[in-house]
C-alpha cells in the first residue's frame, strides 16, 4: 500500500454491515489487494434510502448531512451497493451550507464495479473461478448508475460486471432470457407489495435456474437477499455471492 | 369568462423556461429503397405485385364491383363511383394511385386528389395501390418534406391491410377495413 495513493472511504450499507459482513470484508480485501489505501469510518450509518424511497426524503437531512461530513476527507467513497450509491448521488436532499462538499461527494462516490473499471481501470483481472455464473443486474446499478447498457436502449452494449468476470479462468458467464428485469425487491416494496414482489423474485430466480446457473451474483445484496430468501424457502440448489466475493476469491 | 380564456390565461400564468424548437435532421435508410420498401410492405402483411400478376389476379377473382381510379388501370373499373359513399359497402376492389411511398415502413401517401370518397381505401374489400418506383423516399422525414405545406383536406399514409391483434395478441387481417393490400410498383 502506498501512503500517497488516494484515500478511499469504504461505505458499507447498513444491511450489509448487519447481515453480510463477509461482503464488506471481501470488498475491503479486494481493494487492499489491488493496492488501494482504504479506511472504514467507524461512525457511518444508513444512507437514508429506505426513508427517502418511502416518501420521506425531507426527514433524511440529518443522516445525509452526517454522511457528507464523515466521508468529506476521503478522495473516493466506494460501496458494494449500486442502490445506496445512487441514493447518495440522486436523492440526498440539498444540505444548506454544504453545497460544495455535497457536489464533491456526488463525483467521488462509486459503486465497487464502476470503481474497479472506471477509476482503477481494471479490464481483465487475472484469477480463477471455475463456475457457471448468472448476473443479477440491480436496477439502481443498471439504469441508475449505468453499470450496463439497458436492454430498452439502442446503444452499444456494455456491462462493467461482465467485463470484470468473463475473463476469470473457468468462469462461464450465463446469458439470461430477461437480462435486466427487476427482481421485485424495491426496498419497502418488498413488504408493501408482498405478493408482487414475491412473484417477480420467483420469475427472476426461475430464469437463472432454467439456465443452470450455479452461482447467482450481483452488485447489490438487497436484491440478492430477496432472491436468496426465496431460493432458500423453496429449497433451490443455487448459491449466492456478491461480485466482490467472487473477485476477491478469484484474484487472491 | 369563457373556457377558452380560462385555459389560455391559466397557461399564461405559469412561468416556464423557454425551450428551443430543435431543427430536424434528415435521417435516411441504408440499402436499396425498392428492396427496403417491399420488405416493409410484406412485414405489414401486404403484397407486392407486378402489373402482370395484378392482371392475372383480377382475372381469376372475377370481382363484381371494382373501382379503378389509377391512371392506366381504368379498364378494370366496372362500377360507377356512387355519390353516396354508403353505397360502396359491397365494393370488392379499389385500385388507386399512391403519390409516393416510404421505404422504412411501407407507408403510401394519398390525399383527396386520389380519393373520390375518403372512405374508399377503407371500405373496399381489397385495395390495390399503384406506385411509381421513382416516388420512393427513405424515411418519413423525407416524406413530410415532400408533402411540405401542400393543402389537402384529408391525407393518409396507408401501410398495410386493416388488422387487429386484440384477441390474445393473435394477428388477424381484415378487422374493419380492407382485407388485403397489394402494391404494384411501376
Amino acid at each position: 500500500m502506498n501512503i500517497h495513493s488516494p484515500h478511499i472511504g469504504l461505505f458499507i450499507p447498513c444491511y450489509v454491515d448487519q447481515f453480510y459482513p463477509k461482503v464488506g470484508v471481501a470488498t475491503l480485501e479486494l481493494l487492499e489487494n489491488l493496492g488501494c489505501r482504504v479506511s472504514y469510518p467507524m461512525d457511518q450509518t444508513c444512507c437514508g434510502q429506505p426513508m427517502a424511497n418511502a416518501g420521506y426524503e425531507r426527514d433524511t437531512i440529518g443522516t445525509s448531512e452526517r454522511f457528507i461530513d464523515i466521508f468529506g476527507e476521503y478522495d473516493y467513497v466506494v460501496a458494494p451497493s449500486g442502490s445506496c450509491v445512487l441514493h447518495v448521488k440522486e436523492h440526498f436532499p440539498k444540505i444548506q451550507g454544504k453545497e460544495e462538499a455535497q457536489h464533491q461527494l456526488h463525483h467521488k462516490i462509486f459503486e465497487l464495479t464502476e470503481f474497479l473499471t472506471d477509476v482503477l481501470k481494471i479490464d481483465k483481472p487475472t484469477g480463477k473461478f471455475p463456475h457457471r455464473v448468472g448476473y443479477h443486474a440491480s436496477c439502481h446499478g443498471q439504469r441508475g448508475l449505468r453499470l450496463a447498457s439497458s436492454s430498452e436502449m439502442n446503444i452499444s452494449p456494455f456491462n462493467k460486471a461482465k467485463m470484470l468476470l468473463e475473463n476469470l479462468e473457468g468462469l462461464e458467464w450465463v446469458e439470461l432470457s430477461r437480462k435486466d428485469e427487476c427482481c421485485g425487491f424495491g426496498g419497502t416494496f418488498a413488504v408493501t407489495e408482498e405478493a408482487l414482489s414475491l412473484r417477480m423474485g420467483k420469475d427472476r430466480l426461475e430464469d437463472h435456474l432454467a439456465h443452470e446457473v450455479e452461482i447467482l451474483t450481483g452488485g447489490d445484496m438487497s436484491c440478492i437477499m430477496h432472491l436468496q430468501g426465496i431460493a432458500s424457502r423453496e429449497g433451490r440448489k443455487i448459491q449466492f455471492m456478491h461480485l466482490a466475493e467472487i473477485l476477491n476469491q478469484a484474484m487472491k | 369568462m369563457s373556457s377558452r380564456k380560462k385555459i389560455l390565461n391559466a397557461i399564461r400564468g405559469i412561468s416556464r423556461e423557454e425551450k428551443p424548437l430543435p431543427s430536424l435532421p434528415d435521417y435516411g435508410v441504408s440499402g436499396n429503397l425498392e428492396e427496403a420498401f417491399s420488405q416493409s410492405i410484406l412485414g405489414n402483411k401486404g403484397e407486392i405485385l407486378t402489373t402482370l400478376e395484378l392482371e392475372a389476379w383480377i382475372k381469376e377473382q372475377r370481382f363484381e364491383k371494382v373501382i379503378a381510379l389509377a391512371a392506366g388501370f381504368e379498364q378494370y373499373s366496372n362500377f360507377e363511383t356512387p355519390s353516396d359513399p354508403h353505397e360502396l359497402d359491397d365494393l370488392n376492389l379499389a385500385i388507386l394511385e399512391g403519390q409516393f411511398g416510404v421505404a422504412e415502413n411501407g407507408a403510401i401517401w394519398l390525399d383527396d386528389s386520389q380519393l373520390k370518397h375518403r372512405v374508399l381505401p377503407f371500405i373496399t374489400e381489397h385495395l390495390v395501390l399503384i406506385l411509381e418506383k421513382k416516388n420512393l423516399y427513405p424515411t418519413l422525414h423525407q416524406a413530410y418534406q415532400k408533402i411540405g405545406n401542400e393543402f389537402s383536406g384529408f391525407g393518409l399514409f396507408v401501410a398495410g391491410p386493416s388488422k387487429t391483434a386484440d384477441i390474445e395478441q393473435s394477428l388477424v387481417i381484415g378487422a374493419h377495413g380492407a382485407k388485403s393490400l397489394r402494391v404494384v410498383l411501376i
Partner: protein
Amino acid sequence: MSHPQAASEFLKDQAKAKWHDETLWFVRDKRDRISKSIPEWEDLRNLASEIKDNVLSNLENYLVEFEKNALKNGIHIHWAKDAEEHNQIVLGILQKQKCTAIVKSKSILTEECHLNPYLEKNGIEVVDTDLGERIVQFLNQPPSHIVLPAIHLKKGEISELFHEKLATEKGNEDPAYLTNAARLHLREKFLGAKVAITGVNFGVAETGEFVVCTNEGNADMGVHLADVHIACMGIEKLIPRRADLGVFLRLLARSATGQPVTNYNSHFRSPSPGKEIHIVLLDNGRTAQLAREKFRNSLKCIRCGACMNTCPIYRRSGGYSYGSTVPGPIGSILSPGLDMKKHSTLPFASTLCGSCTDVCPVKINIHEQLYEWRQEITKTHGELGKSLSMKLASALFKSPLAYKISGNVMRSALKNLPKSLIYHPINSWGKGRNLPETPSESFKAWYQKNRS
C-alpha cells in the same frame, strides 16, 4: 381497493397472470428489436422530447395558432375546461344533429371524461369500434391497457361473450372467426352512424390539422361515412410543425407494438364538402399539471403504452389494479395530479426500476416522478404512524451508538426468535422468503478487531 390488494387478487390466477406477463413481454421484446433496427433511435427520442418541451413552454401560443388555422380550414373549435363541459359540448353537437347513435374509435380522453355513460344517460347509443374496446364495452369494463384494451381477457372468455352478444358458434375461439363476427356487426354500425367520434394522436399548430392512427381502420370507417366528425383532444397533443410528425410517427407504433408504423395514419385538415369536423380541446387538469414543475413533462406522453408493456409490476398486476383511466407507470404519475387521495398508492406500486424511463419515446423521467410523487403524497396523506416511525428510524441512524445497539439487538433477536414468529403470516417478508442467516458479528465489529 389499493394497488397491493388488487395485485394480490390478479396474481391468484397464476396461469393467467403468467400469460399476461409473457404476452406483454413479447410486445416489449418486439419493440426492443425494431427500435434497434433504427440507428438514430436514441436521437429520435431526444428530438421528440425536445419538441414536446418546446410545445409545453409555448403551449398558449401553439393553441392559438392551431385554433386559427383549424378555423380557417372550416373546422369548429370548442374549449372545455373539464370533463363535464367536454361531455356537454359533445352532447350539444349530437342534439343539434338529432343524432341518437354514434360510433367512436379509441380515445383514452373520452374514457377519462366518462363520456360513454354520460351520453347513454342522455339517450345516445355509443358503439366503441376498436375491436378490443368493443369487447370490453360488451362487458361494461374500461380498457385495461391504453393500446391493447382487452389484453386481460383470454379468447375463451371473448368467445363466450360473442356467443352471447353476436350469436357466434358456441366454443369457437378462433380469433379470425371472432374478429370477422365483430367486423360484420360493426359494419352495420358504421353504415348507420351520423356522427363519429375519434381521439387525436397529434394536432399540428402550423396547419390546424390533426392525425389519427389506427391499425383496424375503424376511425376512418366511422368518420368518412358520418356527416359529423367530433375529435376529442387534450390540449397537450399539439406539435408545432407538420414535419415533426416524421419524428413522432417513427416512434409511436414502434414503441407501442413493435411495428414500423400503424397501417392507417389519417391527416384531417378540413371537412369533406357538406360535412362537419368539430374539435373539442380539453384541459381537465392538464394546466394544473403544467404548473407542477416536477411533473410537467408527464404531459409529453404520446400514449404509446410502452411503459406498461415494460413494467414488471403492470405485467403482473394487470391494468385494473391501478384503478385509474391510464394505468401503469405513466398513469401513476398522471393520476395523482387529478385526485391525489384516490390514487395515493399508485406511486408506490413500483420498485423504481427505471425501465419505463428508458423505454419512453419522449423521454419522460417516469420513475423519478414516481419518487417525487411519493414525497408529495406523504406530506398530505402519510399515515402519522408511518411518518413517526420513519422519523424514529432516521433519528436512530443519525446516532451511531443507537444504530450499533439496534443492529446487535436485531441480529440477536433474529437468532433467538422462534421461526413461527419470524414467519408469522403478518410478517410479509417471511411469507414466501427466508431471512438471511445472521452472522456472528457485524462488519463493523470485524473491522474493529482486524484493522484498527
